[in-house]
């Protein structure tokens, strides 16, 4: 049995279940408690769990993220909300040097079972400073894990896996997905946990592989529809879900099936998850490729405000379709 939930509700259910499961889980962040969360992900949880388990913080990301990391070393399991992942910029030292490296520098004596979560996306006309998409940035640091759910079921499953993981996990959500609905397994049927490191084939196909994560998966699925119905092209859509660990097997398998790849990535084109995936594919599936790997990324400029144009700066189904068609 499953129910239809929004992505937001699915996340909330995951958080709620983990709060219930483990008394050391504590939610923390700006406006997460009394205000119910800037994007209402944590709605009702302060009321239910109280001051100790759901904590409002001042606007001091370096301070409170660092506080969470310190507490995690002692065995507390903080789940920190960044109101926007964009605000990583003021907590970068803590997010990298402390969360990622303290285990290594201590020769394995410490570990940081912390989760940092929040939305990481463009597309809401909030300008360059508020539209960072740092999956690849953080995945590049060994010691960190990064995931980016695209559907309600994955959102719930991944947040629960993240909280149970004994390493720092950065969960990149998306404000434009919070309201999306989807089937989520019923808790009565058992714990719904989606392991980190497992991609999901969201649509099968034979002519071309669209590989994406986060909201780009939705665009890729939209493009696959159009490709099928209007152009008779059968596109497979692989949702990476987790960026680090990365399901390289699933990537190589889809390439072996279709021999043509378009990567869809909201990131700017210099770098991004897609540059890493392209590098891996060309190295490990060189002979499988019938054409160069193509990428649909954001147009290479800081995020533009204008609601009239921002959707064109980002990947969208039309841009994906055009890219596939241009592969010939």
């Amino acid at each position: 049995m499953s129910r239809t939930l929004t992505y937001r509700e699915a996340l909330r259910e995951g958080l709620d279940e983990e709060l219930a499961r483990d008394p050391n889980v504590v939610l923390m962040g700006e406006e997460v408690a009394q205000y119910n969360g800037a994007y209402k992900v944590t709605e009702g949880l302060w009321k239910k769990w109280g001051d100790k388990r759901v904590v409002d913080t001042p606007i001091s990301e370096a301070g409170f993220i660092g506080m969470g990391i310190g507490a995690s070393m002692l065995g507390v399991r903080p789940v920190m909300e960044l109101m926007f992942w964009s605000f990583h910029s003021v907590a970068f030292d803590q997010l990298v040097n402390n969360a990622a490296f303290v285990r290594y520098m201590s020769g394995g004596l410490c570990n940081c079972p912390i989760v940092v979560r929040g939305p990481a996306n463009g597309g809401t006309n909030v300008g360059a400073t508020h539209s960072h998409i740092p999956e690849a940035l953080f995945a590049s640091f060994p010691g960190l894990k990064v995931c980016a759910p695209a559907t309600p079921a994955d959102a719930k499953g991944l947040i629960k896996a993240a909280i149970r993981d004994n390493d720092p996990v950065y969960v990149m959500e998306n404000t434009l997905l919070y309201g999306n609905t989807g089937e989520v397994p019923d808790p009565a049927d058992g714990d719904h946990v989606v392991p980190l490191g497992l991609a999901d084939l969201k649509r099968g196909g034979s002519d071309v592989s669209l590989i994406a994560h986060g909201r780009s998966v939705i665009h890729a699925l939209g493009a696959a529809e159009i490709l099928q119905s209007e152009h008779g092209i059968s596109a497979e859509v692989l949702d990476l879900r987790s960026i680090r660990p990365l399901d390289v097997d699933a990537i190589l398998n889809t390439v072996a099936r279709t021999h043509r790849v378009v990567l869809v990535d909201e990131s700017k084109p210099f770098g991004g998850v897609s540059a890493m995936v392209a590098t891996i594919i060309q190295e490990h599936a060189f002979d499988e490729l019938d054409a160069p790997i193509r990428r649909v990324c954001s147009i290479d400029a800081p995020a533009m405000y204008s609601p009239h144009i921002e959707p064109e700066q980002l990947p969208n189904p039309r841009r994906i379709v055009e890219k596939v068609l241009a592969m010939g």
Partner: protein
Amino acid sequence: MPARAKTKPAVGFADSPVNQTLTAEQKIGLYAQMVRIRRFEQVSLKHYQAGKIGGFLHLYIGQEAVALGGISLAGPDDHFITAYRQHGHSLAVGMTMAECMAEMFGKRTGCSKGKGGSMHLFAPDKNFWGGHGIVAGQTPLGLGLAYGLKYLGREGCCMCYLGDGAVNQGAFHESLNLASLFDIPVVFVIENNGYSMGTSQVRSSAYTGCLAKRAEGYAMEWDTIDGSDLYEVRAKTHVAMERARKEHRPTLLEVGTYRYYGHSIADANHKKYRTPEEIENYKQHHDPISVFRRKLMEEGVLDDARAEAIAKEAADEAAAAVRFAEEAPVPTVDDIATDVYWETDHGTSASKIGWHFFHDRSVPG
């Protein structure tokens, strides 16, 4: 708003040097500016709700005297920078409603060509360095503008505005220390409207007395100001600006004020974390426009007819701004990748060497 609570009843500031010399017309001009700001915000709200404006909308209604007070004292080498709640500052420095509205409508003729939006209005030609969205991120920039003034030998200061929630960001603290240590002509102005989003001042800051007192830890001068009294804002800000201009010493000012609306228009909670009485009390007794209007009427400077004319002018300018914004052209896809690099925008020889951009312009997508 402890800052205001601490402040003595605002008597006598009309007689302070910087206010005493104001002509009747100048006083009316100040009044008109506040009315203009409020009207702009009301119209913005309407069009935000109608879906014409994207992103966030942080209204300045209730705080008008704060921005105007300082900016009305600007000399030719005084500079200004603030956070995202910035429409008041933008209009006060002399930006037109049209360029601001067009920006918020995401149009090509907006002041930032539709690239910045409501949080990022700029007018360097008017010594106004924007609108910044990362809380307290503008404070080192303001410090740097002031450093630049001193470096370039200009007698001026930089006024750097921030919210009461911004004082707990590390960059601000670093800026305070640097400002005092290096004798930088900067005035930091905390616009204390009592809340950072849904968090009241006491839930975000530990302090004794008031936030501005933290300046003592940096051997810096500070003061508190009642932000509902334009005269007081001008009188006390003037002292700080002169200290900066003449002695290169920084000041931390804390201005007690209030916002009538939510944090942004997306904030539907704002009547939950604040009581209706609190909001009503401010509107009734501390509204900067009503307070100033009353004073000017008492002074015999303003009468109802003039006030009405001012209101109408503001309404007309706002209506015209909306028409301008509506009719303005939208940016094109080609506009996305301009204004990234000065060198490529100017087609310099440097811009011709190597790839500056990495999206694929030959193949669509």
